[in-house]
């Protein structure tokens, strides 16, 4: 190989310098080889294999993932992210309505993720949020384990709140968890506290606060509606099905009360919520505008 022009000494280097050069490169090669194989190639190969089996596991064969001969070695740097991603995926599938009954993947994912969270003290706060959601999901799909799973979810949220006491995502999830355990007032207290410290618009907090107020007692409808509207006017988003259900109940309630102003507010909101019948609600609004009165409506019981 021809050398380009150079200005340094062209004499061969001494033997000790040569030995040092080879030694340095040797040590580097060993270290980097270990890093590349043990901490990079192998973990990601395992991750690839794991995720390749997810679709099949979801569709028909859960044992693709629940097989105890899991190749991902215990100290693998991808353990936590693999377990977390399965939990997040299951939650997405459940929220989309595609989960068929009680999937064995749910308890498997929750327990595996819990084990990893316990082994990783450096775990960030979102681990506890996801862990809580995993247990809440388990409570939803396996009624027999509902009480225990909800309690475990609560423990996870509480742990997360010791790390970031003001984390709104944790607060909302915890408040819903308390509601599901029949402790709506505890959830309301939690949200009130969050409202006190969340010094910005806190739209999402207002939304959840309204939700829980209504769940605690439909007689709280006036305050609940005010909070829900405050939240959603600022862009807060919750579960569309839950929001729709509550507003439809409020529609019937305010119609029965003869409260035209609040009835109109509810109709306006329903007309823009997803998966409602906007045409019907727009007709109602047109009637109110023309007659300044409640229209004749027959509600399905």
């Amino acid at each position: 190989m021809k050398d380009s022009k150079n200005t340094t000494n062209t004499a061969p280097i001494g033997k000790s310098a040569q030995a040092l050069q080879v030694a340095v490169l040797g040590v580097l090669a060993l270290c980097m080889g270990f890093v590349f194989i043990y901490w990079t190639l192998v973990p990601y190969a395992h991750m690839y294999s794991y995720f390749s089996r997810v679709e099949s596991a979801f569709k028909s064969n859960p044992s693709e993932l629940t097989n105890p001969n899991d190749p991902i070695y215990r100290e693998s740097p991808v353990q936590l992210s693999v377990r977390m991603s399965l939990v997040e995926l299951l939650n997405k599938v459940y929220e989309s309505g595609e989960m068929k009954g009680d999937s064995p993947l749910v308890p498997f994912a929750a327990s595996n993720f819990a084990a990893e969270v316990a082994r990783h003290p450096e775990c960030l706060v979102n681990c506890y949020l996801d862990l809580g959601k995993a247990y809440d999901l388990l409570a939803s799909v396996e009624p027999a384990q509902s009480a225990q799973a909800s309690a475990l979810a609560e423990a996870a949220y509480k742990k997360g709140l010791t790390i970031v006491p003001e984390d709104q995502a944790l607060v909302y999830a915890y408040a819903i968890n308390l509601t599901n355990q029949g402790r709506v007032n505890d959830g309301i207290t939690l949200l009130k506290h969050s409202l006190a410290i969340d010094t910005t618009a806190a739209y999402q907090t207002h939304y959840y606060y309204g939700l829980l107020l209504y769940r605690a007692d439909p007689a709280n409808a006036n305050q609940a509606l005010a909070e829900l509207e405050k939240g959603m006017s600022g862009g807060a988003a919750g579960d569309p099905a839950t929001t729709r259900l509550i507003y439809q109940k409020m529609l019937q309630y305010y119609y029965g009360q003869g409260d035209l102003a609040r009835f109109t507010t509810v109709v306006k909101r329903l007309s823009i919520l997803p998966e409602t019948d906007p045409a019907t609600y727009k007709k109602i609004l047109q009637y109110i505008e023309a007659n300044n009165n409640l229209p004749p409506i027959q509600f399905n019981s």
Partner: protein
Amino acid sequence: MQSWKITQWILILGSLACLVVINNLWLPFIDGKEVAYRGIAFGAVLFALIASVSSSEARSKLARKCALLARDPIFWAATAGIVLLVFSTIFAYSRTVAFLGETQRGEGFLTLFAFYIIYVGTRLYFEKKEWRITFSIAAALVPVFFVMSLVELAQGVDRPVATFGNTIFLAGYYLFTAVAGMELLRFGRNEKKSAMAWAGGSAAVISILGIFITKSRGVLLGLVVALIAVCVFILIRKETLRIGTRSLKKIAGWFLAVVLVFGGVFYATRTARFWTHIPGLNRIAATDVTNTESRLIYTKMGLEAFRAERTPTRILFGWGWDNFSYIWEKYYDPRVYTFDIQIADRSHDKLVDMLTMTGVLGLLAYLALWYFYFRQSYRLANTQMFVSLLLVAWGIAYFVQNLFVFDTLVTFYAFYTILGYVGYLHDERLKEHN
């Protein structure tokens, strides 16, 4: 010397790593590239070892190159940075995260060390031919990214990502490919190879267009600041500078005037509908506050953490790489939830990132790196004005855009490659002097 050539080719492969996207990994745009860059670093070291063991010529050549490298202040600044990163990792809030890296970024000490190895590798094993091949590959990929971006736009994607997963990273990489294209243009003109010149020039132009399509305000701002700085630089130089028969000073003067007038007109008419049709400028005109507000809050969190945790190790070595998430947790500001509900693992300001993650010493090493980069690039103006201007412009653009974002795997590669290239040009300049 076969192994020497293999080492060179493995390092050249770094310019292709930006293409790696592997589905069925948690983060398809990140994880595959992490494997690629670490693999390239390992492969280069392995074959460098084989070359050194098997050939005394290779050992002598490597020793000569090391002697030359030892005269490069950029190398010493980069080495200081890596050494300080070791201490930063030892004293990190979470050593595991600082060492292995967060999975979602694929960085940590291990990957940053891999990039350092790639940088040193290019300094020791690259000659003119290898730099030309690297730039050719980078430039050749530009139409690929651009076409992918157009396809994404046609599919309704607002800001295309190509193989980068994030539009800002694509924009940052386009700055590098613009340099690669311009260097190819220069090679082609000097050697009267019109095809190379045209290919390089086209790649540079498409790169700039690509930046506009990504609508990345930070990168666009960096580009504008860089162009203004270069024009001022040309205007204050005493010597007569020409492109062909045209005075470069006149061109720079006119360009500066156009930029200032255009900037004034744009600012005054920014609410006009016309600007909504121009990619890039529409986003600047829209002045979306969401991103800006959340980033300001992250920056404040970082500075608050630096102010509050005044132990010697935190001040000197920081919290450790990829440990900003723990700052986010500990100094969480509830106001950020309105703008961004996810955990932030960067302050979105490179200098604040360096201060918080690597401490005062790490930040000083980083700034020293930039000082020597600009000094070396500026000195090239005595013999290679065009290259000097190009590298100074890239440095300014890259530095400014990083004040609003952070480095990722592909931009680390671009950064260290340009550092390596400046070092190579510095070596060539020394050889000519001697």
